[in-house]
């Protein structure tokens, strides 16, 4: 039999209806959006403050650069969002990014054509992601450790392939990298375009596919998801595959951004990605958060860097301190704004 039985009419609802109905909860603004809103407001505030503080800060050029300089981080953050939503974490993204740049550069240097190289360098990320997924789900190794090992591994592979940095001068790759759309003052590079597409995909997958919702369900409670008969295993592994792939793609974007491959790039970049995601309002315990929030998070980090450079005279140590302080102000504000919960 199916959902149709018993026909809603069949069940005698009337005697119980008046009382048995636990009364509707007051339609309160959905709490889940508050953190993201908080992030957004603070971001806006920062932009305004910056604009008033420094001349030609609030220019299209600066905003465009914000995206251009952080395209790779955006992609990483999207992947990281998936993993964190399941309640996991992926520490390897920085190294995987580096690995991907090195592979790209090395293969191009070896004279392979771009159409062959790109899938390979992204695929490397996918494979590592898959390995993580398997370790974490089937061997129940804790995500933190599994991906930490992955981090060492990827870095190690980088050194094996090429310790020194490799320039990329493959014409078609350079062409691809330097493709740019200019709308007046605004500039959009190919990597920004790709990043935005990834964001869009991430959003669609999370909110309009069963996989996406299962990701959230697992974050809400893996045991529950299991008992609800959801495909926990597949989803969890897939989440890490997504993250790995994003890291690979991120590496590609970074290679386009720097036109080189270098085994030491992306050191501690995983922290930036995680910070971005969390600032974007995603809980590390999993289950709540949005891709768009993560993007805002990246922009915030980028903006902090921009402010640093506009500040102009900060010594190395003040730079670090200011970054910390801005981060603090930011997190505190965002916390206050989203604290309307209970």
């Amino acid at each position, binding site marked *: 039999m199916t959902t149709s039985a018993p026909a809603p009419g069949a069940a005698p609802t009337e005697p119980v209806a008046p009382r048995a109905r636990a009364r509707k909860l007051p339609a309160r603004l959905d709490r889940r959006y508050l953190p993201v809103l908080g992030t957004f407001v603070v971001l806006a505030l920062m932009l305004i403050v910056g604009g008033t503080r420094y001349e030609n800060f609030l220019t299209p050029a600066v905003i465009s650069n914000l995206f251009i300089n952080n395209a790779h981080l955006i992609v990483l953050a999207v992947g990281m969002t998936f993993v964190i939503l399941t309640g996991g974490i992926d520490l390897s993204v920085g190294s995987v990014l580096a690995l991907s740049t090195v592979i790209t550069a090395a293969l191009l240097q070896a004279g392979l054509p771009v159409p062959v190289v790109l899938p390979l360098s992204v695929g490397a990320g996918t494979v590592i992601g898959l390995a993580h997924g398997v370790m974490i789900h089937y061997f129940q190794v804790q995500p933190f450790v599994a991906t930490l090992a992955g981090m060492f591994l990827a870095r190690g592979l980088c050194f094996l392939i090429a310790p020194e940095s490799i320039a990329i001068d493959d014409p078609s790759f350079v062409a691809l990298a330097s493709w740019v759309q200019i709308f007046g003052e605004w500039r959009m590079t190919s990597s920004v375009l790709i990043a935005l597409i990834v964001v869009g995909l991430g959003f669609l997958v999370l909110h309009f596919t069963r996989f996406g919702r299962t990701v959230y369900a697992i974050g809400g409670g893996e045991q529950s998801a299991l008992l609800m008969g959801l495909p926990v295993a597949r989803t969890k592994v897939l989440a890490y595959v997504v993250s790995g792939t994003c890291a690979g793609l991120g590496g590609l974007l970074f290679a386009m951004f720097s036109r080189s491959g270098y085994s030491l790039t992306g050191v501690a970049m995983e922290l930036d990605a995680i910070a971005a995601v969390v600032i974007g309002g995603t809980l590390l315990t999993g289950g709540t958060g949005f891709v768009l929030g993560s993007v805002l998070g990246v922009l915030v980090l*980028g903006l902090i860097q921009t402010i640093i450079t506009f500040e102009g005279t900060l010594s*190395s140590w003040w730079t670090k301190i200011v970054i910390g302080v801005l981060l603090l102000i930011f997190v505190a504000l965002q916390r206050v704004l989203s604290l309307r919960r209970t």
Partner: protein
Amino acid sequence: SSDAGTEPAGGGETAAADDGVITLGFSQVGAESGWRAANTKSIQDTLTAENGFDLKFSDAQQKQENQIQAIRSYITQGVDVIAFSPVVETGWDAVLQEAKAAGIPVILTDRAVDSSDETLYESFIGSDFVKEGEMAGEWVAEQYDGEGYKAVELQGTTGAAPAIDRKEGFASAIEGTDIELIDSQTGNFTRAEGKTVMEGFLNAHDDIDLVFAHNDDMGLGAIEAIEAAGLTPGEDIKIVTIDAVKDGMQALADGKINYIVECNPLLGPDLADIAKKVLAGEEVEKRIVVKDEAFDQAAAKEALPTREY
């Protein structure tokens, strides 16, 4: 594209021309070592208002993306000159082209960029890492050739340019001598790791005669380890390093280090000079090699009192 400079894009320059102040954006790698700190200090002390400079300084925290981002923002801010010490040699073409397009001259300090297009930067001021390695190697070769020395190497951070080049230089210099490089590990340019790695070496080999460290700090770490092992650094085990920062020179003077090849961090004056020339439209050499001297223990004793860093 030189005339592009006079176009509104480089409005900053014409402004500079008026008040004669040169706005220079400098993007430093980071502050990863004492050497770097000295380098930064030298630049900040030279490019002052008195000397007619308005220095915009930013620290890239060892991240290329930050550095590129900084350079981009200097371009948008319309500075007169951009100078930077690249985190890594490759991957600058794109952003340097932007600078070129905006008519802002670029000067490299300390580290080169490998780019097919030489016109992207005006000049590169800095030491030659390979040369430094060679100088160290040559000295070792002439001192100890024929004594069948067993040497170990404390490398800098794996993949970092100075580490790669100094290793290469040293290797080529002791090529064909009977000095044997029996082991080589990375000490990440730090004292602490220099010490632990040296301890490891001492566990692993009992016949080490000489340590070549890619910088003073690792050498100083090695000294600690050697002393802990009850041996005398400089006597039982000879030590050769690169950089010649104050602590290193002190150890050299105290006879704990045997030879130091200088890697001069005081690039400020040269940079100021070149920047002025470039803006004045004068010709400058593409490559300005900072003269690096080398010190043995005697030389160190003399140099020490007048040492700035």
